[in-house]
């Protein structure tokens, strides 16, 4: 009993800090409608800033605290609101989800760059008043923890006063109620937003400082994850209610501590060793599923700025062929290391492809793509290697691939089922939580699992030695073990899957999927079975993710169980896929290549430049190289608010002129082929080939545009004319229109006649 009480006290202490962190999220979400996933990153940055002041420069604690919580963090929040979040108005939920992801990765990248770039020094934050503590029921409660509790009480009170007693606070609540009415009252919603982001960031900063001593030594992503633990509390408060958020935070803190208590700090059941770390994700998942439906209505159908065009089957097949041919030509003149980067990029493209179907077409979200890769690898390994644990198989078998795809598909269905009624942000959080749960309980699991089924012993090996080796395939008599052959295999796979996905999109089924994205309510009233649709999309997309994940793992050959599955890689991939153009197969390809180029190739290029020009080493390596490595991917995501349809769309717009001038285009393509042949024979260097061919991509469309100006004037007019083809806007809705709609949506033929 005494133990129970002691653990209760400790649980409440932990809950208090979670409450501070989660309240910050609630404050920003409720006034701006943006769920700030970057909250954890703001906390991390602030904790590092505090460490810098307090422990590196030895500022007195009160001054360091003041500068961190009242100056630095709020400023960071202000900058985020003004520079980034303001541009998100009128964009889709996916964009509003992804942009904070980009901010998170950007801030963490910057933090890594500033504090962890060179030496491996340990940044150790200390608790307030060091180890001083009082004994409560036999348990040491540190002054630091008591301060946390007191601060959370003070903050609760201060927030109450702010929201109910000051005009700023009442205005914040008014924004939530009716933003345009507030404007009609003369209130300035922008200022309210700025204030709420400043307050939210300040609370994040405080939580970061309070939580950081838990880590021993500061680590950027570990600290961010620590703050993520508080997110379920905000969801428990429906992202709106501060009191409920406090309740959620206490439940969270108590769950963790009670688990410590009954499991002897994780010593009792080895298989469940990581359960403690999965508790927040489990609670998040649970909270999302249990909260009443109407309160979770995340998606409101509005006109958004994203627009995607569907290619015809002919175009799809043509471009698939072009991709394979171009890749074959390209890899033949590339150096071995360049082929490796490219193969890595194509593998990521394959993973992003699963998101085109799921998110681009169906509007559903999966923030755990890499988790499927992990699951696929476990399944395939199980099939090929078996319970003996000996790597007997030298190549990846077709059976293993099929099994992996089936397992992933089932797992995908398994998340989709409970999450059926979740959309947008909430679905994103649920899948993210699912990823964390699998990571903690399955992927980090090194114990083999033994089952007794019908008397037979059955063993499942997870990442038994902390890593799994995935061999490359040997199919159709071709050995794909070599880097170039494997690259081509993946490219062909991408082309085939891409064409398949476009075929799905063009089918009646695809139109149903898109209708589901645009208006689930309307679909339900039309008699579509949403459950089946959603389940189907999730299962197909998960199977693709599994296949892609297997290829990605085979590309790397040995897959360790740590870095890639903690959630951030999945976030990054999702973000880049949206940046590439989530509605396009080509967008997925661009995304993968882009990710590989930005995080691997660019730093390499700058490294090379740095060693070629030692006097400019600081510029190329220290500034540009690190910048592109740490902050580059995030920056492109942050720009998304300006161009929410993605890069693929921009490129297509850029190349539209070529269609009007087939002769000139043919000459250009022929010129590149000749140049390639010359490079292949060694007459031209790779460097010049890439310079000229990539450069021409930018220049040629413009030249053609200016030469054939008169033709484009015509096209512009034509486009303006065909802009809208909505039925019923320009003319009355006829029963023939209804038949068209019925066939398009795959509905059973209704009684004829009908609306006239």
């Amino acid at each position, binding site marked *: 009993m005494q133990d129970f009480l002691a653990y209760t006290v400790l649980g409440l202490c932990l809950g208090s800090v979670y409450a501070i962190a989660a309240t910050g999220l609630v404050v920003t979400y409720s006034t701006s409608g943006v769920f700030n996933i970057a909250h954890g990153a703001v906390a991390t940055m602030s904790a590092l800033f505090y460490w810098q002041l307090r422990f590196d420069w030895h500022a007195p604690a009160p001054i360091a605290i003041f500068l961190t919580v009242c100056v630095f963090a709020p400023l960071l929040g202000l900058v985020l609101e003004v520079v980034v979040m303001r541009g998100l108005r009128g964009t889709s939920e996916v964009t509003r989800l992804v942009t904070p992801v980009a901010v998170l990765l950007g801030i963490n990248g910057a933090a890594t760059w500033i504090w962890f770039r060179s030496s491996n020094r340990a940044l150790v934050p200390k608790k307030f008043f060091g180890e001083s503590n009082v004994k409560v029921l036999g348990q040491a409660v540190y002054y630091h923890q008591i301060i946390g509790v007191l601060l959370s009480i003070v903050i609760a009170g201060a927030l109450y006063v702010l929201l109910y007693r000051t005009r700023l606070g009442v205005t914040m*609540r008014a924004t939530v109620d009716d933003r345009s009415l507030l404007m009609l009252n003369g209130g300035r*919603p922008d200022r309210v937003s700025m204030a709420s982001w400043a307050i939210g960031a300040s609370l994040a900063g405080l939580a970061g400082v309070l939580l950081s001593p838990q880590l021993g030594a500061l680590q950027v992503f570990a600290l961010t994850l620590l703050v993520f633990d508080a997110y379920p509390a905000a969801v428990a408060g429906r992202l709106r209610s501060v009191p409920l958020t406090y309740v959620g935070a206490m439940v969270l803190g108590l769950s963790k501590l009670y688990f410590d208590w009954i499991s002897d700090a994780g010593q009792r059941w080895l298989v469940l060793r990581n359960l403690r770390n999965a508790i927040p994700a489990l609670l998040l998942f649970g909270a999302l599923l249990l909260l009443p439906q109407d309160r979770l209505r995340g998606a409101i159908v509005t006109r958004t700025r994203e627009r995607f065009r569907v290619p015809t089957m002919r175009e799809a097949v043509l471009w698939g062929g072009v991709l394979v041919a171009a890749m074959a030509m390209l890899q033949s003149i590339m150096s071995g290391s360049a082929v490796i980067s490219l193969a890595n990029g194509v593998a990521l493209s394959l993973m992003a492809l699963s998101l085109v179907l799921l998110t681009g077409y169906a509007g559903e979200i999966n923030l755990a793509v890499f988790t499927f890769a992990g699951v696929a690898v476990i399944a395939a390994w199980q099939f090929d290697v078996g319970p003996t644990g000996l790597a007997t198989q030298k190549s990846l078998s077709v059976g293993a691939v099929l099994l992996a795809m089936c397992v992933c598909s089932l797992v995908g269905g398994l998340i989709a089922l409970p999450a059926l009624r979740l959309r947008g942000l909430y679905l994103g959080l649920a899948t993210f939580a699912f990823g964390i749960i699998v990571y903690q309980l399955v992927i980090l699991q090194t114990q083999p699992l033994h089952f007794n089924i019908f008397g037979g012993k059955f063993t499942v090996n997870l990442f038994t030695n902390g890593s799994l080796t995935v061999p490359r395939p040997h199919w159709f008599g071709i050995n794909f073990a070599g880097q170039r052959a494997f690259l081509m295999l993946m490219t062909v796979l991408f082309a085939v899957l891409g064409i398949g996905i476009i075929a799905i999109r063009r089918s009646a089924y695809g139109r149903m999927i898109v209708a589901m994205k645009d208006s689930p309510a309307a679909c339900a009233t039309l008699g579509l079975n949403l459950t089946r649709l959603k389940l189907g999309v999730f299962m197909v997309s998960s199977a693709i993710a599994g296949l892609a994940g297997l290829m990605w793992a085979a590309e790397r050959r040995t897959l360790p169980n740590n870095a890639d599955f903690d959630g951030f890689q999945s976030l990054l991939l999702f973000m880049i896929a949206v940046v590439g153009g989530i509605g396009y197969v080509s967008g997925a390809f661009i995304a993968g290549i882009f990710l590989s180029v930005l995080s691997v190739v660019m730093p390499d290029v700058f490294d090379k430049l740095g060693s070629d020009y030692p006097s400019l080493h600081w510029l190329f390596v220290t500034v540009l190289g690190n910048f592109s490595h740490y902050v580059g991917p995030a920056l492109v995501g942050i720009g998304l608010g300006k161009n929410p349809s993605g890069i693929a769309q921009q490129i297509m717009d850029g190349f539209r002129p070529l269609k009007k001038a087939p002769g000139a285009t043919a000459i250009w393509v022929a010129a590149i082929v000749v140049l390639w042949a010359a490079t292949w024979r060694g007459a031209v260097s790779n460097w010049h080939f890439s310079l000229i061919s990539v450069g021409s991509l930018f220049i040629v469309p413009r030249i053609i545009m200016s030469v054939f100006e008169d033709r484009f004037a015509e096209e512009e007019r034509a486009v303006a004319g065909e802009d809208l083809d909505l039925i019923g806007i320009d003319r009355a809705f006829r029963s023939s229109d209804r038949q068209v709609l019925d066939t398009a949506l795959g509905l059973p033929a209704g009684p004829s006649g009908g609306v006239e």
Partner: protein
Amino acid sequence: MSETVLELLDVRAGYGTIEVLHGVSLAVGRGEVLALLGPNGGGKSTTLKVISGLVDIMSGDVHLASRSVAGVSADKLARLGLCSIPEGKGVFPNLTVRENLMMATHTGAKLGDVEEVAYTRFPRLSDRRSQLAGTMSGGEQQMLAMSRALATNPAVLLLDELSMGLAPLVVARLYEIVAQVAETGVSVLVVEQFAQSVLGIADRAAIMLSGRITRVGAPAELAEELSSAYLGGKG
């Protein structure tokens, strides 16, 4: 007519790519009450949203006191003296009466003054100052919304379907107050579907059909035309 305070010049506006107002021109003089009438979907509310800055215009211009205000944000216009009470939701439902009044102070009025005006005009509100506005009756909500118009001394007052869902007696009382407001020199633009309730106080009336002003004239004259628009005209 005295000096023109509010003027729309051949305004085209709409939502997204769809044009709803196809060239609307209107003028309201100082202290004048103009009733904008017409059937549902004609674009009356859109006209008010254009004036109050919530909907951008595609072409044409809006003048306030002879200055172009096209493109000026809604909150700025409100602080400049344009008071707009939107259709059916003139109050913040999850804020108390007192907090709703507090929002009126964004125009620069003092909370004490706003409360005094509101509670003297509508004593019923003073008993309910800490009740959530959304839980009050429709009439009380409109009184609360009107308090803002009374307390902030606007130059222009825009009212959208004040009578919607209210008992005739309440409507009559509210329009009486509108008339008094206009007498102090405020230019009032009232939107209603049915003419009856506002005819008594309107100086002039205009009919709007399918995004166009089809007639402007004396209220009584137009009342008849309006009923034919409902019964036989295009919808």
